[in-house]
């Protein structure tokens, strides 16, 4: 279908045209041919020729008599707040004046396909629009070009373009099993047993009653067995509960896709490919959700941006705060090397989400490990797709991969525990680390 030159969709601020609903060429051509046959039939005394043309001519005249008067409005709005990864849902609203019969919609999104639909519109119509996406963070909604048609499709309005809208797509957490614990638990309340004496935990020992013990802790069975004359009272002592403090550290300096040809920044990542930052957001959100569910405290920091970290806390509001902060993480400006890694609460478990394509994240992880923190490094590099690379590019990728493998091996040798999120099974890997730390309550493994 050809498009006329010099015609552009009307924006909201443009003044209306003098004849906003002109006839379509199909209507005019049918009218011309029909009137010609009508005249020929009338002048030549041929009712059969005139009858063949009568219905199209009368129909076109009737449609022109019902020509709409007024402007068309179109808008796009998000379908609901708090959209999570997977789908971008929006609503396209078309408002036409009385007499509008149909509308031609061309709906598109940068990087996605374009859809053309010719729909029936009488008055106002709202159409749900969905775009499946694997990307998270700020995303553009669809925008549409709408051209309304009058009764019988005999008249047509100026095309109208909707205003652009963007929406924040939050990362969708995956369910996880047990997670590793820090070597040192904190506090006297929580969801985990510690080595400190207190209340709430498992049996520690049975001890003779002493000052400070509670009367309701007296174990009468043991007392009756050991001191029938009640010369000595025995109490059951338990371990205290404690909670874990976990700090999630996201390396937002990298945002690379699975195609190494896009790592240089000269070519854009395809919209259907999840980048390393999308994987990191999903991984961090999943870990945060599981930790909050068991009652632990979670904080968030960013290796790339110099901003205030999210202090460790618990509860659903803390989880919402962390998920929203994750959606806002993005590479900002030039890469800056930190003199020293961020300060973290003592005894906290540190989970680092990075691609480890350079030394900064690995050095920070090693530094925390040397400080006594338990560190889990989550590799968020997507599964690399090298089928479209040339031999030269494949060789370069191999060199980079070797360097990266050496870097990860050095991390493991330094005592940092490694989990591959996109290329492995994080549920299994994290569960193995959790079993190592849960063997003896409050005691870490491999220290």
């Amino acid at each position, binding site marked *: 279908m050809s498009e006329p030159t010099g015609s552009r969709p009307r924006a909201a601020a443009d003044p209306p045209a003098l004849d906003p609903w002109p006839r379509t060429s199909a209507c005019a051509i049918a009218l011309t041919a029909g009137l010609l046959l009508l005249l020929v039939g009338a002048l030549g005394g041929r009712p059969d020729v005139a009858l063949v043309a009568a219905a199209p001519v009368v129909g076109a005249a009737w449609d022109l008599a019902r020509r709409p008067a007024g402007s068309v409005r179109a808008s796009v709005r998000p379908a609901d707040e708090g959209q999570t990864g997977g789908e971008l849902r929006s609503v396209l609203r078309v408002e036409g004046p009385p007499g509008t019969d149909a509308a031609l919609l061309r709906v598109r999104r940068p990087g996605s396909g374009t859809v053309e639909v010719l729909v029936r519109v009488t008055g106002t119509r709202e159409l749900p*629009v969905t775009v499946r996406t694997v990307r998270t963070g700020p995303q553009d909604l669809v925008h549409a070009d709408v051209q309304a048609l009058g009764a019988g499709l005999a008249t047509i309005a100026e095309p109208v373009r909707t205003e652009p809208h963007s929406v924040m797509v939050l990362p969708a957490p995956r369910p996880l099993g047990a997670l590793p614990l820090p070597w040192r638990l904190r506090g006297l309340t929580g969801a985990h047993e510690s080595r400190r004496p207190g209340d709430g935990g498992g049996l520690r020992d049975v001890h003779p009653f002493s000052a400070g013990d509670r009367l309701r802790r007296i174990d009468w069975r043991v007392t009756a067995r050991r001191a029938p004359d009640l010369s000595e009272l025995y109490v059951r002592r338990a371990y205290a509960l404690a909670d874990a403090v976990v700090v999630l550290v996201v390396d937002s300096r990298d945002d690379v896709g699975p195609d190494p040809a896009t790592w240089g920044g000269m070519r854009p990542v395809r919209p259907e490919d999840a980048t390393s930052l999308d994987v990191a957001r999903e991984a961090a959100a999943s870990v945060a959700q599981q930790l909050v569910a068991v009652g632990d405290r979670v904080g968030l920091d960013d290796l790339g941006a110099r901003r205030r970290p999210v202090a460790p806390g618990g509860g659903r509001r803390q989880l919402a705060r962390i998920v929203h902060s994750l959606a806002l993480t993005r590479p900002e400006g030039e890469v800056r090397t930190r003199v020293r890694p961020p300060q973290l609460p003592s005894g906290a478990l540190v989970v680092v989400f990075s691609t480890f394509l350079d030394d900064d994240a690995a050095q920070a992880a090693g530094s925390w490990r040397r400080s006594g923190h338990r560190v889990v490094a989550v590799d968020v590099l997507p599964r690399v797709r090298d089928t479209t690379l040339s031999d030269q590019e494949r060789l370069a990728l191999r060199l980079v991969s070797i360097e990266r493998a050496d870097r990860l091996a050095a991390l493991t040798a330094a005592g940092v525990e490694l989990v591959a999120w996109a290329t492995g099974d994080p549920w299994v890997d994290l569960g193995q680390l959790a079993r190592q730390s849960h063997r003896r309550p409050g005691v870490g493994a491999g220290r």
Partner: protein
Amino acid sequence: MSRLVETLTTGWRRPVTPRAGLAAWRSSRRERVLVEVGATVPGGVLRGAVALLGVLVLLLSGLTDVGPGGSGALRPLLLAGGVAALAVAVARPGGVATGALLVVVGVRLLQDEVAVDLRTCGLVLVVHLLVRTAALAAQARWGTRVEVALVAAELRALAVLQLGAQALTLTAAAVLASGVPGAGASWFRLGAVLAALAAVAVLGLGRWRPAEAGPT
């Protein structure tokens, strides 16, 4: 080592290879925009309907008759013209080809004697269907999805008009059969000419623009 890596990675800035382009085209079709509407048909179906209706028009108008006629040389030309106009109408339904096809049909009808019969009733219906279907197909490309509800609404409007058109056709047939002065009467001609001039005035009052004025 870093210099070697830098030298080798400059190859990543080369243009996309044809194999990569094909993969990129394939994957670009995976992420789609989904607009939730009712049942739809592709625009190609409407164009196929235009083709089918055009063939019916050619058959009912007698263009495909190969028997001897008064204008032996004209009939094959009319058939060729009709087929060509139909082919162009399928490719560009909003263009002049649809009108040209109507004119060819009219010229063919003029070759025969005056007759208002079942064939004329069929022609009245099929020509009207062809014109409305072409107007609908003109707004849709081959891949455009057209809502079935819209097609049904257009058919309903057409049915209302056809009631009157068929009644008029049957009336004309009855007048001709009864021998009452009809086709040749001057009052008929006068009324038809006045009606045609009034319709021309309606057409001449406003401007029109191509039906392909799609969104840019």
